[in-house]
């Protein structure tokens, strides 16, 4: 009888504790700052899908969309930090300096900055995705599907992230088709349907029959659809915008990371991190493969996807040469993260120069 009471007492204590912890956990509020509108079907849209995953996990969320990277960003961040948000995700590179500045004033609020490199305070983490792994898949498909051996690539800004994507794409395409050339058009924008469409047209005029993009709008896949060439979706599954042209898309899947980090805040286990996740961790997702692709290509891609996920295959495995023929990565070696983070030279097979 005595034992029973102790057991009852202890178990109810445990139960009470669990409920309390759960209740506290649910009180954590996360905020998201977006550069564009949530309906852009690209970058911001995918971050908002991630935010909804956090909501679904039982946390309260807030977002502010269309926050310019001007002096306004700092005010929005301060207001979010001031109004009871425990963790703030800033989802554009240009928020880097405001994020670190406001983080200094609010040491109890956690800040998560996407795609940046500054972590000046212990409450600032950075995160990004290894999109280049997705581009290895796209390059494999493009190299196989092209007939003209000219592949077009609409690029945004000449930063390592974009150069890395071009290189990874070209290397994979060369592996299946040594004769291909990658032609680049720099749009100097992340999102501008008009400019992106012009860039795509220019590439098609130059003989490209597969177009890849590192910009966010659906304009390029729609131009490709009209011109009867292939294209790939960026950020979200763009198949419905151009069902014939889009062979597959590389999706940005932020949800699991967001849920993880918000839970860490709730449990008090959050600590500063620099996260760079790829296909293996599910941050980079390959959409359904189009049935226009031959069956053997589809199974090859599936296998490549699994190998990239397990680490058996790395996008940058030597020998890799630059445009002038200098060795960048020796045979049997793979590029380390430091080299990838600062990559500012094209590999052999890419046409043109990096704009300076």
């Amino acid at each position, binding site marked *: 009888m005595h034992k029973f009471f102790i057991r009852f007492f202890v178990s109810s204590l445990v139960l009470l504790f669990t409920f309390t912890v759960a209740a506290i956990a649910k009180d954590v509020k996360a905020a998201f700052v977006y550069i564009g509108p949530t309906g852009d079907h690209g970058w911001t849209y995918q971050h908002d899908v991630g935010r909804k995953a956090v909501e679904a996990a039982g946390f309260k969320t*807030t977002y502010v*969309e269309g926050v310019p*990277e001007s002096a306004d960003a*700092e*005010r929005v961040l301060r207001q979010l930090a001031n109004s009871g948000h425990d963790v703030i995700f800033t989802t554009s590179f240009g928020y880097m300096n405001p994020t670190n500045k406001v983080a200094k004033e609010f040491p109890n609020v956690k800040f998560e900055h996407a795609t940046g*490199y500054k972590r000046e305070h212990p409450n600032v983490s950075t995160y990004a995705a290894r999109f280049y792994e997705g581009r290895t898949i796209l390059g494999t498909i493009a190299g196989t599907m092209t007939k003209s051996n000219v592949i077009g690539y609409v690029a945004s800004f000449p*930063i390592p992230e974009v150069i890395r994507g071009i290189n990874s794409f070209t290397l994979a395409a060369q592996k299946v088709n040594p004769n291909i050339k990658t032609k680049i058009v720099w749009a100097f924008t992340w999102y501008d349907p008009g400019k992106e469409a012009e860039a795509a047209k220019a590439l098609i005029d130059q003989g490209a029959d597969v177009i890849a993009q590192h910009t966010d709008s659906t304009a390029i896949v729609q131009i490709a659809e009209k011109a009867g060439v292939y294209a790939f979706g960026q950020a979200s599954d763009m198949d419905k915008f151009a069902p014939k042209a889009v062979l597959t898309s590389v999706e940005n899947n932020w949800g699991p990371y967001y849920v993880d980090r918000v839970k860490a805040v709730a449990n008090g286990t959050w600590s500063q991190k620099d996260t760079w996740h790829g296909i293996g961790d599910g941050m980079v997702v390959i959409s359904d493969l189009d049935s226009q692709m031959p069956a053997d290509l589809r199974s090859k891609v599936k296998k490549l996807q699994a190998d990239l996920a397990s680490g058996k295959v790395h996008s940058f495995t030597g020998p890799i040469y630059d445009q002038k023929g200098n060795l960048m990565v020796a045979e049997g070696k793979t590029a380390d993260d430091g080299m990838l983070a600062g990559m500012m030279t094209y590999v052999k097979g890419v046409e043109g120069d990096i704009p300076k």
Partner: protein
Amino acid sequence: MIKIVKRDQPSRAIFFFTPVLAIFLTLVAGGLIFFILGFKPFEALKFFFIVPIADKYGFSELLLKATPLCLIAIGLSFCFKSNNWNIGAEGQLTFGAIVSGGIALLFYEQEGFYILPIVILAGAIGGMLYASIPAILKTYFNTNEILVSLMLVYVSKLILDYLVVGPWSNPEGFNFPETRQFSDSAKLPLLFEGLRIHAGIFLALAAVVISWFVFYKTYLGFQMKVSGFSLKTAKYAGYKGKKMIILVFLISGACAGLAGVGEITGPIGQLHREISPDYGFTAIIVAFLGRLHPVGIIFASLVVAITYLGAETAQIFMQIPKYTGQVFQGMILFFLLASDYLLFFKFKFIGSKK
């Protein structure tokens, strides 16, 4: 029955009353829009117009936001008063920021009291240079200044893009499109610890005082007024039209350039691609809402500034889409133009005839 009658003369009382009417109608229409969208209209308006400035910090942010708008609008009022349609203040702001930012970068990691005045002056000169292009083309080649000044906005943004992506990008910044941070000596001093409001506000206030003096106490102001009413009269009176056109454009460009300086050497502290959320265009609304009067422009800049802050607050606390802020700015201008009808026409009540 009500009859609409043309006024013999535009009513002066109505002239200053219509901006107030426009703001009132905007609030009513805004409340209605909130109601249709399924939000409580009064609560939404409270979060839009009261909550953002309810504390010291919020009020300082309002002044920070209003400073460039006021400065640019004062400059534009010189142009608009004299029938010169400078639509390109955004470009003059950008070019001013480019020139002053370039100077600030030259003084990277250097300190000295002389740096800031040079940086500020450079911004004003940059804005003036850029505004002189449409002015000279207008006076000597009879081009349309609306088109030229507007198109030059995009040119200035492309120049800025080129510089921050290429030659001026931060060498330690992994080629991301931004420059280094300016040294402290190249930055405008903050007025209060912990607030972002900076000495740029004094530039705006000085512009207000000077413009009032010029408009109402000088021969130039009188010339501008006459040219504004009728270019033919101005010509008949023997005013040197070309000189005045260039002068008002230079003043306008200097103000816009200074607004650019205030942004980059104030809260931003570096050059990057997005230094202004279209202040140069919004200031056109401010100038007209303020009736091209220096004091009116102060109030107008505060009203328009709050639509920015309110949009953020309303989204954070009520999940109202942030773009409603732009809807409000558009509505203010719309209602102002619409109620200007009352300037020239009046309603006359006529007893029904039996």
